[in-house]
């Protein structure tokens, strides 16, 4: 399979603080790829860099063409959905309006309406709360909403930033289960950023370990799981 996303020597900085020092990785079409690393390693910044949300240097190719330097709004139109750090909920809008915004760039009105039902079968809780102000949803529900909003784009590539953050293990398992379904039945490729390395490695096909803005290790999930250093630092056994 060809690489859907190919990142080469990516640098990024916030003002004068450099965060990424030449990251390279690739993501196969149809796969789930995980970026692992501790706090401050540059995982979130990597996702932001892919979406044109920070100033970057280096190459990002998506589906065969360069997307580095493009605006966030244009990158979204290529079918890249980003579930941001902190969930990015539109807190004063209703759940349904949040979902509708996810499909903002789509022109196929009819299919969008059908997608509401599709989303509600994945997350029945959101259907119950569809007229509720999104800011009043629980953390888990807001994470479901963030994922659903991204799915409303019908993305080819889904960028997930710490979907497990601050959530109860049961809800995390539910969300990860749905991610697997979406990946397998809808052929959505997923780039997953996680601190919870154990769960991420169970879900992902491949993983990259990032430390201080560089990739230090890469391989299939099972290879990474067996790595002595990863086991000690990220898996804790």
């Amino acid at each position, binding site marked *: 399979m060809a690489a859907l996303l190919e990142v080469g020597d990516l640098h990024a900085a916030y003002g004068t603080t450099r965060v990424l020092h030449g990251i390279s990785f690739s993501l196969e079409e149809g796969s789930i790829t995980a970026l692992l690393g501790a706090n401050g390693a540059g995982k979130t910044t990597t996702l932001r860099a892919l979406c044109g949300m920070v100033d970057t240097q280096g190459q990002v190719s998506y589906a065969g063409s360069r997307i580095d330097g493009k605006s*966030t709004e244009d990158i979204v139109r290529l079918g890249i959905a980003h579930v941001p750090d902190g969930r990015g909920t*539109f*807190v004063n*809008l209703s759940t349904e*309006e949040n979902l509708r*915004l996810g499909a*903002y*760039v789509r022109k196929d009105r009819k299919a969008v309406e059908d997608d509401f039902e599709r989303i509600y079968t994945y997350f029945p809780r959101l259907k119950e709360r569809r007229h509720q102000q999104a800011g009043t949803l629980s953390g888990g529900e807001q994470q479901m909403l963030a994922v659903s909003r991204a799915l409303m784009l019908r993305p080819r590539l889904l960028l997930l930033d710490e979907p497990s953050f601050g959530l109860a293990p049961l809800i995390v398992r539910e969300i990860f289960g749905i991610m697997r379904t979406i990946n397998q039945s809808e052929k959505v490729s997923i780039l997953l950023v996680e601190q919870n390395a154990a769960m991420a490695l169970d879900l992902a096909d491949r993983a990259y370990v990032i430390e201080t803005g560089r990739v230090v290790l890469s391989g299939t999930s099972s290879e990474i799981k067996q790595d002595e250093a990863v086991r000690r630092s990220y898996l804790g056994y």
Partner: protein
Amino acid sequence: MDAFLQQVFAGLATGGIYASVALALVMIYQATHHLNFAQGEMAMFSTYLAWSMINAGFGYWTAFLLTVILSFVLGVIIERVIIRPVENAPVLSVVVVFIGLLVILNSITGWIFSYTIKTFPSPFPTAPLLGNKFVSSHQIGAIGITLVVLLLLFAFFRFTPLGLAMRAAAQNPVSAKLVGIRVGWMLALGWGLAAAIGSVAGMMVAPIVFLDPNMMGGILLYAFAAALVGGVDSPGGAVFGGFLVGVLENVLGAFVIGNELKLAVALVLIIGVLVVKPSGFFGKVHVSRV
């Protein structure tokens, strides 16, 4: 009693105009957290455009419609050309730009059209509606048009995809970009809409206060008071505040403090609200971690 009711209706009529201008202020405030001090002068300039068109022989409603459209375009252009470069500037720089815009619009209008006071026609009959003695036809018409504008705006924001996108962009620009909304253009659209609403308010108030480059000075103060009373981030509150300020101003001016001190009502309200309840009646209380 009759005199009192007359004042109340007059208050509702001007209140509708304050409500429109307040709404224009709130729209820009919600998106950018800046109060547009030039809002009144923009409306005044629009009213002069309408006056020129009517004088050039256009029918009233044709001129009205053209003015609204032209004001919208001018609002968009002002945002793109003048406001955009100071988007990320400190708040005081933005205030200075707004005041500069106010003075420029005021002077340009005076230069083009002279400072002589002009009459501006009302599209409504001069005879009172159904011979009632409380309220003139223009007052009823102005209230009616204000309500239509407010309803249209409400429907636009509530029911159209573009309206939803504008609300999203104002609320959470980062997330809005991530769903593909062009946030910069939403701001420009907001300015366009604010200018269009302002132009309607200008055309409705001009027959009452007459047309001159300084006609919106007092009105802008009342509109600030209205926006603050209602809560400066609440569109519904702005409308409520507008009508409340209009009625208060007229009733207090006629029966309590006299017409000369009417403007003080606005100033007292502004200071009173800021001291006692800065979030206004319907605004949200902002809590932030420091």
